[in-house]
């Protein structure tokens, strides 16, 4: 990705976001380390880390088509699982030692079924994710997580003690803190890092062991602290949506002069804005509480729209945003209606919003440019 950042650490992050297996992950594997893929933000990475494994958030980086997965999915399905499953079928995910799924959405939940039936895999698990986020659901999800922990432990021959879990939680919380520091830098008038660059850093964080990641991130933060960017943007934007893992998409937006200074996305601020409670008595319950309730939710959760809208509005104020871009992958029901409601909420709050439909593979760049440019013009910027 084209960037003005000279940082070596950033270069590594950028490369990690543009590939599936980056050198750090490869090294981990070469040393005998194991990698567990997972779908959706609500799968606790900490359980995987606590088992001595590396969690890997599933994406379809590098996919060029869906010829293989077309036999399993239909044209009215979301392009994200179609590309992911295509790569499963072409063997790009052979590096995984297991996969954990949740019923996040109607499109992705069938990856579990298709994967299980058609691709021999040693370790493939599905957890039951509630639709509500209340105390009863936290109780349910705590049990689900406990069962996952047992299954992972049994299969990989590790006893995942509370100690190991707390250690993992502390490590992942440290990651969140560091990433949040990165976000805080973007509150400046001339942020030293763009939205595209930040996304690369965040994606990289889901693709390598956290210890090494944290080290490199600290390096990057050191390099960026006290610096400022060119400040040549026309407007400060927040981007809200689901699975957005392609910095190139954000770059097209930013090339029009709309600097993305914050977000609410699956690879973005929702992962880091709050931390797992390190003072809780039971680590599994603490994880359930965090992943289900404490974290800003995604629209597949029922009863949370007001909270989600408030989160976006608060973010806009905190980061001094001029407007919001809502992106969704076409055929996504959850984000379609969420953006419909959010548009009205933001209008009431006096914040302009542009809604964009996209496909998983970034294409139609000319059309994207036109819409973003027009949006900036309507904001008078």
């Amino acid at each position: 990705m084209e960037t003005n950042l000279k940082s070596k650490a950033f270069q590594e992050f950028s490369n990690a976001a543009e590939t599936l297996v980056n050198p750090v992950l490869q090294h981990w594997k070469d040393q005998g380390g194991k990698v567990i893929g997972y779908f959706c933000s609500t799968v606790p990475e900490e359980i995987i880390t606590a088992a001595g494994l590396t969690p890997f958030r599933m994406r379809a980086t590098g996919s060029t088509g869906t010829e293989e997965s077309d036999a399993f999915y239909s044209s009215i399905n979301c392009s994200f699982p179609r590309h992911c499953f295509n790569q499963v079928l072409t063997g790009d995910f052979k590096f995984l030692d297991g996969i954990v799924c949740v019923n996040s959405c109607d499109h992705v939940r069938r990856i579990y079924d298709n994967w299980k039936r058609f691709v021999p895999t040693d370790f493939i698990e599905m957890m039951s994710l509630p639709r509500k986020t209340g105390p009863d659901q936290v109780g349910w999800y705590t049990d689900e997580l406990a069962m996952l922990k047992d299954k992972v432990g049994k299969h990989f021959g590790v006893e995942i003690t509370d100690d190991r879990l707390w250690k993992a939680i502390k490590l992942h919380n440290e990651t969140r803190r560091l990433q949040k520091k990165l976000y805080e830098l973007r509150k400046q008038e001339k942020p030293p890092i763009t939205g595209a660059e930040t996304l690369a850093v965040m994606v990289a964080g889901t693709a390598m062991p956290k210890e090494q990641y944290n080290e490199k991130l600290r390096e990057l933060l050191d390099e960026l602290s006290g610096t400022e960017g060119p400040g040549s943007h026309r407007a400060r934007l927040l981007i809200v949506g689901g699975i957005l893992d392609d910095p190139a998409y954000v770059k097209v937006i930013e090339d029009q002069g709309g600097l993305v200074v914050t977000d609410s996305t699956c690879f973005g601020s929702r992962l880091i804005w709050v931390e797992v409670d390190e003072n809780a008595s039971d680590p599994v319950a603490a994880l359930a509480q965090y992943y289900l309730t404490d974290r800003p939710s995604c629209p597949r959760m029922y009863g949370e729209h007001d909270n989600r809208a408030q989160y976006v509005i608060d973010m806009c104020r905190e980061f001094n945003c001029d407007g919001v871009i809502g992106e969704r992958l076409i055929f996504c029901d959850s984000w379609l209606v969420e953006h419909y409601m959010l548009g009205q909420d933001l209008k009431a709050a006096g914040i302009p919003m542009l809604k964009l439909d996209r496909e998983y593979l970034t294409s139609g760049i000319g059309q994207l440019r036109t819409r973003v440019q027009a949006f900036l013009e309507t904001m008078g910027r």
Partner: protein
Amino acid sequence: MVDKGLERTIAERDHFEFLLKFLEESPYETSHLLIPLVKANLDHYKDTVRYIEEGKPIIASYFSNAPEIFTAMDIHWYCPVSAAFAGAGANPYLMNDLEGADKLAVSSDICTLLRMAMYYTEAGLLPRPTAIVGMIIPCDGIVALHEASRRSKEWRGIPMFAPDPPYFTDERSIDYFAQELRRMVDFLTEHTGQKLDIGRLREVVEVTNEQYQLWQEINELRRAVPCPFNWGVGGGPFALTQNRWVGDPRGLEWFKAALADSEKLVKAGKGWLENERIRLLWFDVHPTWFFDLAPWLEEEWKAIIVMDMFSYCPYTLVDTSSEETMFHDLAKRNLMDTTMIRQAVGVADNFASDLVRIVKDYKIDCVVWPAHMGHKDGAASVGIMREICRDLGVPFLSIGIDTFDPRYTTPDEVKNTMSQFFTAMGLG
């Protein structure tokens, strides 16, 4: 200020009133099974209007929420999406409703039913409920609809409770959902003042048990070659046990009559169709435009719809010995035996095992996956369906329709596709 919700409900009541009169006075032979279904609908709308006019509490709920409990608590409820559905063309405002839905700034790649429901809410065409018991199973879209309803100007602030669905159907999941049903009862009591008497619930469930038992027997007769039952009143069992005459002895009468009809045919070695040639599984519910397709299938191709998702809700009878067993079994039924939800919820094994069972038991000649545009999980299951059909040696057709909107793929286009399929597969 005219309450549009009341206005529309009155119009629907009048529509069924007219339909009933028309059928009763028609010189042509009308299936004696159809009239009670129309009556059941009419009674429902009459009650709804009466409750609104008398200012009594009225709940918006869904057929998946243990309707037996509502009957036992003497709570009147209506389903916000039922106006769209109204079964096989009974919605005379369908085109207006579709155009209304099109006017919303919501893209049409989400299930049309949900857009229609959003339209009904925003246009004030639904009676304003005292409280809402939602349905957040089986799909993303229905959850999104509920979020939109909660937030809408029209319904904001109306208390809403939705039982949370577990993804699996094992004992732990059933117990969890049973707890949710108990919370639902507390919610209902809070907002209507009605209490649940377990003895009354037992009475109601004993009636629905009998209804389901008869339903099972009818289903078994449908296995006969030739098949004695046709699509015309295919939505009946679902409508009566889960929506209209829940726990009502009148429902029993209907099932007995339907069973008697089928038995008579089977005993005589006859089927609904003379010269039945194709036994078809329509692996979804009936579209609103089915009257434009199903009769043609019967006439043109001698194809009979032996089974569909309206009818495939096999059901373990509810054990009425205690409160615990009743809640447990009602939870199980809601999770596993509700129309269409049964096949969409949870892992693919749920629909897959149904598919295998139906093809074998009902001697199906071809499987049709209508591929309604709103079934995103179903769309992601076609590979699995195809493989199962291949293993079973039965032809499989995926069409691509909109269950609610005949403009998406017109009935003529569907007929064309099906004709080509039958010819290519050497059927009929």
